[in-house]
């Protein structure tokens, strides 16, 4: 039995400790917004926050996630400045990688409220988008940074 705190809710899941967190989130807790893309930490589709840090959940075991505060796309609430910027700039196409992109971008902005293009390139290159929405991702991150700045720190 593993105890996980996901989006401020406690879950007891009957799962072996070495199972990747990704599959616990998807198959046991049934939060399917976090996606499986590669299983080796290359594409970032499964990115979640562990104590505020963006991590590919396919590379974290359930055991390692115990005691940490896990946030998934469902936990952002829908009106986070990054989500609003994603909508305003029409970022998603197929949309499959976008949960991971948004989780990575929110962690980036929490660390660095006004990232340069180079900062964005560096941090966001861990998240692949096969539809090629990269130009809009850059734009939306800048817009989210501007909005957050106007409304005070988020």
């Amino acid at each position, binding site marked *: 039995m593993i105890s996980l705190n996901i989006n401020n809710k406690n*879950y*007891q899941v*009957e*799962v*072996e400790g070495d*199972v*990747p967190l990704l599959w616990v989130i*998807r*198959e*046991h*807790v*049934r*939060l*399917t*917004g*976090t*996606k*499986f*893309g*590669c*299983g*080796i930490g*290359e*594409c970032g*589709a499964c990115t979640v926050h562990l104590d505020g840090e963006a991590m590919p959940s396919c590379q974290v075991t359930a055991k390692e996630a115990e005691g940490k505060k896990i946030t*998934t*796309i*469902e936990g*952002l609430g*829908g009106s986070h400045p990054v*989500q609003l910027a*994603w*909508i305003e700039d*029409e*970022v*998603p*196409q*197929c*949309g*499959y*990688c*976008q*949960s991971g992109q948004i989780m990575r971008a929110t962690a980036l902005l929490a660390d660095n409220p006004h990232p340069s293009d180079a900062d*964005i*390139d*560096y941090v*966001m*290159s861990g*998240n*692949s*988008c*096969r*539809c*090629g*929405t*990269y*130009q*809009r*991702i*850059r734009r939306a991150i800048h817009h989210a940074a501007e909005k957050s700045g106007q409304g005070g720190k988020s």
Partner: protein
Amino acid sequence: MSWIINVSRREFCKTGALLGGGLVLGFHLPESLAAGAAEAGGPFSPNAFIRIGTDDTVTIIINKSEMGQGVYTSLPMLVAEELEADWGKIRIEPAPVDPAYNHTQWGGIQGTGGSTSVRSSWEQLSRAGAVARVMLEKAAAALWNEDAASCRAENGFVLHRDGKRRLSFGSLADKAAQMEAPQEVVLKQPKDDKVLGTPKKRLDVPDKTNGKAMYGMDIMVPGMLTAVVARPPVFGGTVKGFDDTWARKIPGVKAVVQIDRGVAVVADHFPAALRGRQALKIVWDLGALAGLDSGALLQQYRQMAEKPGAVAAQRGDFAAALAGAAQKIEAAYHFPYLAHAPMEPLNCVADVRPDRCEIWVGTQLQTTDRNKAAAITGLPPEKVALHTTFLGCGFGRRAVADSHFVSEAVQISKAMQAPVKVIWTREDDIRGGYYRPAAYSALVAGLGPDGMPVALRQRIVCQSIVKGTPFEGALLKNGIDETSVEGAADSPYEIAGFLVEYHLAPAGVPVLWWRSVGHSHTAFAKECFIDELAQAAKQDPYAYRRKLLASHPRQLAVLDLAAQKAGWGQPSVAGAFQGIAVHESFGSHVAQVAEVSADKKGGIRVHKVVCAVDCGRLVNPDTIEAQMESAIVFGLSAALHGQITFKKGRVQQSNFDNYEILRLSEMPQVKVYIVKSDEPPGGVGEPGVPPIAPAVANAFFAASGIRLRTLPMTAAAIREASA
């Protein structure tokens, strides 16, 4: 205490609908549809595509798969324009499998591909909207006891000429359902468009930012098991025998099932199924391709190209024209196999029961898949319900004539007598075949005294995508697979002696349409070779193309627009060099100018791409822009990184660490310019792909003096070309 919620089938379906929030993306179930029709007391369903509720909602039933290309917005726009609907009241529902939803140009099947969605649906959906509008106007006229000519629809209401009376579509639904459908409707002229041609926010975007959008991978039905399949390590291989003793001992593994494509391990969850597969011991008969080697294959293609092939296109007398030429130029181009690598790995949920079967899948070929499930289960097709989910990319990979990824799930569910989700790992995907075929193109041209080409011959060696499939009859004629020579055989360049020949390469590796299909290689050969001819003629490559396209105004217009916006001859990035390419595909014309330089590791850095597109009459300009950006990234991934190679029959790539796709740090600045046009609508999803690789190769030549004729253009390929 666990939070796991057991969602019943009906609740699940409701949840599917509720998850959509403002935009309802319900899964369309026959029984729920019937129930809805009975209880709502008069939704107005004038045809298969429109349902107007008494609450004013206008539900558009979409028969195309949404894989990122924006059909869940562009197709409703076509309806809304003629219906005069209130855009805020539009809802979307994926269509079930039914002849009413067949592709208008594909003869009897429902499907999405070939950049045809808007083109093939334009008239059908415009008419559907217009018919509904006329019936709503008639209904209002009847209620008011007025002449229908005095009533007109606008923004979700029917208004009377007197300016005093108006009724919403919802309040007219009951009455409209009793009106006779008009035999004839007059569609709007482009100048009267209100919706088409203006940017509309994509209806599917909000749910794609909050985790609510449901892909095939996300479907869960009660009692569902998860399976992974061990498939042969070499294409054409078969199972000789297997030992599943250890696999069955993995906690969570429920069964090991042999199916036609391999051995499936079925478990209660994915990680257990995967571990079970790792514990399987299978003896394979590797079959005829056990020695397949990419180097040897290239040699074979090269030798084939030395001999004349089947004639795919001929204008004038090539041989005579070449004999009289002042200068002769030759070049050959080589293209690797490419995986589609959709972001969402392939998957399918099947629930086979004695009397019916349900399938949830992100597919591009609904009817084919449904029929395959019927054949496997022995059920009549109408007892198989296929629900189309969102697709996490398609690129053609989910349009397979043999329905293999659906077939696997149906076979396993049938054997297990339980619902089963088959999940492909990324390794299964990269090594799973159905690739863009490898190709070899040998070109020879003769230039006249003015440096302009008088003769050009291209020999293409390529596997057929359609041979042995139901598409063979339509696309393989006189030994020519149209999808191998498209973009070459119909080259617009005016050359007196023109000849395109085709060699059908031996079959074996499963091959498939891959975003832009044959154009993905023919455009590279055509546009790089024309650049080489311009170089031989000591002429500017843009000006050279202009001369050869003098009687092709749409090609010229995009070429000029791209050159002008890019500032041809004056790169905007310091130290970068420009290259240009122009190509027509899927009814649209695209020109691109790339600015590149050599990067520190000896590879290519693409700084900027200017893209001009003429896709005829516009639907959603923002989607067109997004699709051009997308196509450029897709094309760059292939041009700079993409290759599937074989050694001893095995695919050497496995995942995104060795089958790389473009990353954000490599993303050039992309500028898209759309030509205003009243020409018939062209495709949008694919036409942006073909020009990017040649534009980059031509720019790299300008930068380095090195011609890159083998894809991908990696640092290693550059070293080899410069040696």
